[in-house]
């Protein structure tokens, strides 16, 4: 049967499919069966609810910022409040949402299943990570209620030492410390699981690319996050005890803080994007019904990104005061990280070439990702170029750059992954048409929000300002309109998913025609993941799979 015989539409409902009566969702019940669960799938779902709520909170702050900037002066927030709002927006989005989003929520759910094991190596530690995350959330909410965190998400000294709002800084930095350990333990758990628990037949190069990406991410989490931990710990000691290590008044060096901070936070941007790239590799292959192009290159480039990412942190500090040679070296090294990213983009496009593309919600999000991430990545290059960055540093150009990679990249991939694995996680199919509409609105809204910001940045609009020159007002208004559109798109996406929980039809085992192991176990999966031992084969060989109208999904060829 040639690929063309397979239907291009998403599966229609069918009868006679084998739906599990007993699965991890109804395995046990009651509040404690969730709160104390050691099942990676339930922990994953709890994370999912948690990170999406944080995203909603951070999103509110984002809209507050955009609405404030509608007029060039006299916005509805006071300047002080404005500072607090953008700080909380950034800190919540980075530390509570985007870093745990894919690894801790989707990764937790999928990693053991894709690998063919019952659970992660340390289930208790896994639950512990989740509660550390909750603790971090509580500390952030404390900082929020003390009202006053106004340092920006980067906590640069001497702002963070001098600001009047010491309590909020302490609560937030301690929150970051705790969240850091949550992230470290998740990464540690994943590395150990992949290294020691692969079942027979699951060789390194039979691992789905999502696992390679998660593995590379975990390496960064384990190697970079401790440095953030000690940095924020020293910062709290600075606030509490006036130790002076980062305080110029006591002969300390604030630039050292920036070095420590970016030594974590640059690699952290790869903690954000690598798992997203992993998702896209899966989505591209499955929805094009064609083996992934250049499997090994994608796998190796994940690891390359993880390693190169440690060498370029200085590009955030070109204007902070470093030796000339150092800035030149950092600038040159910055260009190297774009190579592995570009390799991936080429491979995804290569996968689509002559594939049988199913245009459905996950695929639309994946396509949006490729478009947006490419723009985000390419605009990183001018920023990495020393001479240009001297002018563009701390302008809206940087803001637009990182939103293209973080939101256009990671968030869009997260949504794509969420739609893709939703049937597996919940056992329900969502309304694909409305899902596609949400993807379209998000795409349009996103570009409307952030394309104007590139222009603003190149014209000299500095970031983090509560007021601006009148000549920028039109572009700012365009951006605000875009952000509202984007918000509507995300709301539609959420409604589609919620609707499916109540009215969606039951999902078949393999709705999209994937060949990785999670599509072998039922939707939703049983408590221990596999009723019978799955045979581990090539994760991207679709020849043995065909569409079965009776099941409404794909089945193994007889």
């Amino acid at each position, binding site marked *: 049967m040639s690929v063309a015989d397979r239907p291009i539409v998403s599966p229609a409902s069918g009868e006679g499919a084998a739906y599990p009566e*007993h699965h991890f969702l109804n395995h046990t019940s009651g509040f404690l069966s969730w709160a104390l669960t050691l099942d990676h799938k339930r922990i994953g779902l709890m994370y999912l609810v948690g990170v999406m709520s944080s995203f909603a909170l951070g999103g509110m702050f984002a809209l507050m910022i955009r609405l404030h900037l509608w007029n060039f002066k006299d916005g509805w927030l006071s300047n002080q409040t404005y500072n607090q709002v953008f700080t909380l927006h950034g800190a919540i989005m980075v530390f509570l949402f985007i870093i745990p989003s894919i690894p801790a929520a989707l990764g937790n759910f999928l990693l053991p299943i894709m690998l*063919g*094991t*019952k*659970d992660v*190596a*340390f*289930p208790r*530690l896994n639950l512990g990570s989740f509660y550390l995350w909750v603790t971090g959330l509580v500390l952030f909410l404390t900082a929020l209620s003390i009202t006053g965190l106004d340092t920006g998400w980067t906590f640069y000294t001497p702002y963070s030492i001098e600001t009047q709002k010491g309590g909020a800084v302490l609560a937030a930095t301690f929150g970051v410390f705790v969240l850091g350990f949550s992230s*470290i333990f998740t990464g*540690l*758990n994943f*590395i*150990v*699981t992949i*290294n*020691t*628990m692969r*079942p*027979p037949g699951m060789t390194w190069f039979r691992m789905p690319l999502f696992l390679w990406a998660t593995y590379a991410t975990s390496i960064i989490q*384990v*190697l*970079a*996050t*401790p*440095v953030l*931990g*000690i*940095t924020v*710990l*020293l910062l709290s*000691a*600075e606030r509490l*005890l*006036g*130790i*002076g*290590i980062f*305080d110029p*008044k*006591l*002969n*300390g*060096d604030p630039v*050292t803080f920036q070095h*420590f901070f970016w030594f974590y936070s640059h690699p952290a941007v790869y903690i954000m994007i690598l798992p997203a790239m992993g998702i896209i590799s899966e989505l591209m292959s499955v929805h094009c019904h064609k083996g992934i192009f250049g499997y090994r290159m994608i796998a190796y480039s994940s690891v390359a990104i993880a390693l190169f990412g440690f060498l370029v942190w200085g590009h955030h500090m070109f204007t902070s005061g470093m030796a000339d040679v150092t800035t030149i070296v950092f600038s040159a090294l910055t260009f190297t990280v774009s190579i592995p990213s570009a390799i991936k983009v080429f491979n995804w496009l290569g996968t689509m070439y002559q594939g049988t593309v199913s245009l459905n919600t996950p695929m639309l999000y994946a396509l949006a990702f490729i478009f947006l991430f490419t723009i985000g990545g390419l605009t990183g290059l001018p920023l990495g170029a020393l001479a240009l960055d001297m002018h563009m540093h701390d302008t809206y150009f940087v803001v637009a750059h990182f939103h293209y990679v973080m939101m256009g990249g990671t968030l869009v991939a997260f949504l794509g992954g969420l739609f893709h694995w939703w049937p597996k996680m919940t056992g329900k199919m969502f309304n694909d048409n409305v899902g596609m509409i949400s993807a379209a609105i998000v795409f349009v809204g996103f570009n409307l929000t952030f394309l104007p910001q590139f222009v603003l940045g190149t014209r000299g609009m500095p970031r983090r300002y509560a007021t601006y020159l009148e000549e920028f007002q039109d572009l700012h208004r365009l951006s605000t309109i875009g952000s509202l559109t984007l918000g509507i798109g995300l709301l539609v996406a959420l409604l589609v998913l919620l609707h499916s929980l109540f009215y969606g039809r039951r999902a078949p085992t393999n709705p999209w025609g994937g060949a990785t192991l999670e599509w072998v176990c039922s939707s939703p999966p*049983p*408590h*221990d*993941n*596999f*009723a*019978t*031992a*799955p045979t581990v084969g090539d994760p991207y060989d679709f020849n043995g799979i065909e569409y079965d109208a009776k099941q409404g999904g794909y089945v193994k060829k007889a």
Partner: protein
Amino acid sequence: MTAIQETAHESEHAQDHHHDHPAWLAHHFDDAEQQFDAGKLGMWLFLVTEVLFFSGMFCAYSLYRNRDPQVFEFCSRFLNEKLGAINTGVLLFSSLTMAWAVRAAQLKQHKLLVGMLGATLGCAAMFLGVKAVEYSHKWELGLFPGKFYVSQIPGAAHGEHGYLGSLCIVPLILTIIAGVYYIYSLATMSKFHQQVAGPILVAGACFFGGVQLGRILEAEETTHHAAEHAAHEHSPGASHDHSQDHSAGELLPEKEGGEVIALGHKSIEDVKVMSEELKTPDASVNQKSMAGLFFSIYYCMTGVHAVHIIGGMLVITWLIVKAAREEFHDQYFGPVDNVGLYWHLVDFIWIYLFPLLYLIT
């Protein structure tokens, strides 16, 4: 039988069904070896994160020492290297007992295992006892971190603030509880409780032993220096190496001219030549923004290290409970082994801290 062959549907509660799974083998592992390997790799990765965690402070140390070497030379004389050396010895010994404990666990020598873990716990407590003396002594002198640093005035009298007493309150309470627990265990004649309570009580005693030892040595040092100081005053041209072991008591000398020594830009040779002048540190070093920074680094590094010692004591206590229940054997000794690895790392970091902080001159 591999993990995935077991069916989930029949399992109401995962563990009941794995008849081939002994209690010590978690249900998601296939066999003892896999469980051991996972635990071990996990611990090694954790140690990597620990090293990186400390590396931030080591970085700060080298940056600031490189920038202001004279500050580090001046300040390290306030650290009592005798106490540092004793603590180094104590920790090294505890590494030995910990390694021995691993062996005992493998060989099912349950009593010996409890003993060795107890010895390790005792050493840790003693370390903290000595540390308490060091810290409190510095606080009495006003050697606080950063902006709380009090410039040292030679010959000034230092009041008793009772810092040592307050540091001892929590250990005292814990020791009393351990004592009560021990009496209870004797009364009930429970071998298990005795095996748990005994080592904890001993550890409590070790803490106070450490405190006592520290006080004796600290007092010795002070009187020794006071005497030396008197002698020194009468012979202004005292020899170079004589001044090497000067410490807290008298190093803030009679001002022999307050000229600023800007050593930062000088080569090492220059520094050596000038070390004669160094023993008379001037006002530029003896202040919050200079010496204060050193003590910030000192307290951060040794403080975070001490927190790791306390963490280690908690897990060792957990091991003692398990050991008293005779849980370990040749197939299952991973926890002892992994805690051992952690403990060696904590030692190892101290091995770096000691020379870097105490032995600068």
